[in-house]
């Protein structure tokens, strides 16, 4: 392990005279047990990439290390909060998550296939929408706020029990129209800076933009604990921030546009491991 870090530091010196400090060749194993795929062949539907990378590989050696041990990962604190919520009876039906689903570990693999089609509701659901679906339809409980703390905590729990399982989001059949809508949004330039997702995350990943090292914008590792704001961050909140940063009028968290974009961007990561809660800067 030590030599791996040292290799990283040497590579950094060669790669960049500036702050990037990333070890793009490092491998991620969590708790010396869960092997995470952080680079793999791009799926066929991602036309312009040959290899896909987790955002983890673009972060500094120090930030990378925080995710290698659950005792070091600040995001895992919120997983504990969510375990308590998982076992709490709420709503008019006298149910908890555990009443139907058993232990959280029984949900292994679920995170990996979201967003996905829901037959009864006849809509594409993100995992947040499905959690709220359970709460209102099965438990008779109130919805949680989209990207609110309770929801992000639960998303962190659901991700944590799927860590190491490859993302495998369906893009055809009933979700195809939403997927195509998401693809169109990905390549649409927004705002006064006139930037699309692809401009930075497809054409320029690995490059620095001022002090920021651009990733591929993969979302396999959400929710993510950001050192910058010291809290869990959801996928759509991050989309909102990105579009805001193009000097555009952004879309709302939970909007049809962002559900479509989440489906499309998730599918670009098919083959990477579920990794959340991750640690980023």
């Amino acid at each position, binding site marked *: 392990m030590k030599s791996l870090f040292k290799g990283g530091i040497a590579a950094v010196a060669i790669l960049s005279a*500036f*702050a990037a400090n990333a070890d793009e060749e490092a491998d991620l194993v969590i708790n010396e047990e869960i092997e995470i795929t952080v680079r793999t062949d791009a799926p066929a539907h991602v036309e312009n990439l040959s290899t896909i990378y987790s955002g983890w590989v673009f972060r500094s050696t120090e930030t990378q290390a925080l995710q290698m041990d659950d005792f070091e990962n600040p995001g895992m604190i919120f997983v504990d909060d969510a375990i308590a919520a998982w076992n709490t009876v709420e709503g008019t039906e006298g149910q908890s998550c555990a009443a139907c689903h058993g232990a959280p570990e029984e949900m292994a693999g679920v995170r990996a296939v979201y967003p996905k089609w829901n037959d009864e509701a006849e809509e594409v659901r993100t995992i947040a929408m499905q959690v709220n679906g359970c709460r209102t339809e099965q438990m008779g409980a109130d919805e949680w706020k989209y990207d609110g703390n309770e929801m992000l905590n639960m998303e962190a729990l659901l991700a944590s029990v799927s860590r190491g399982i490859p993302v495998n989001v369906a893009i055809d059949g009933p979700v195809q129209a939403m997927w195509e809508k998401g693809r169109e949004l990905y390549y*649409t*330039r*927004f*705002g*006064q*800076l*006139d*930037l699309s997702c692809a*401009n*930075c995350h497809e*054409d*320029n990943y690995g*490059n*620095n*933009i*001022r*002090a920021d090292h*651009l990733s591929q914008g993969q979302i396999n590792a959400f929710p993510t604990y950001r050192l910058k704001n010291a809290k869990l961050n959801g996928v759509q909140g991050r989309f*909102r921030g990105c*579009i*805001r*940063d*193009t*000097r*555009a*009028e*952004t879309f709302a968290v939970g909007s049809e546009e962002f559900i479509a974009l989440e489906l499309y961007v998730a599918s670009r990561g098919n083959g990477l491991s579920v990794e959340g809660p991750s640690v980023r800067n």
Partner: protein
Amino acid sequence: MKQILSAGVAIAIATVGFAEGMMPDDVVYSEYGEVEASLSGQPGDAAAGLEIMVSRGKGNCIACHQVTALEEYPFHGEVGPSLDGVGEYRTAAELRGIIANAKMTYEGTIMPAFYRASGFNRPGNAFTGKAAEGELSPLLTAQEIEDVVAYLQTLKD
């Protein structure tokens, strides 16, 4: 240095105050994207241009471009080409055109247009995420662009 800078600021304020600058929609680009005439009608101030190059709230040119002469200002980007020697191989008209609207020179470029105020998709009110209210201001003023052009012309090998 201080005196040069305050002179630059004075010129910029005077320009905005008298609104003598060419409006963004009125800028004439050549077939290859060059803009011959000064946007403000005034010469640029290279020292003021340097400040605009490195300021995050202004041009922030080094966010994407490496410039050896600006090494004391940290964190240069890699998204665009290095600007070392650009004053040697680019004319003022080329530089002005690229800064004002690089898409007139390089179709499909990632580089934002710094002197354009219309034709955007969902333009926002600066970095608030909310819709823009009223007319947009270009990212830089006419004089600020002239100042950056003047600075870039000093970058010779």
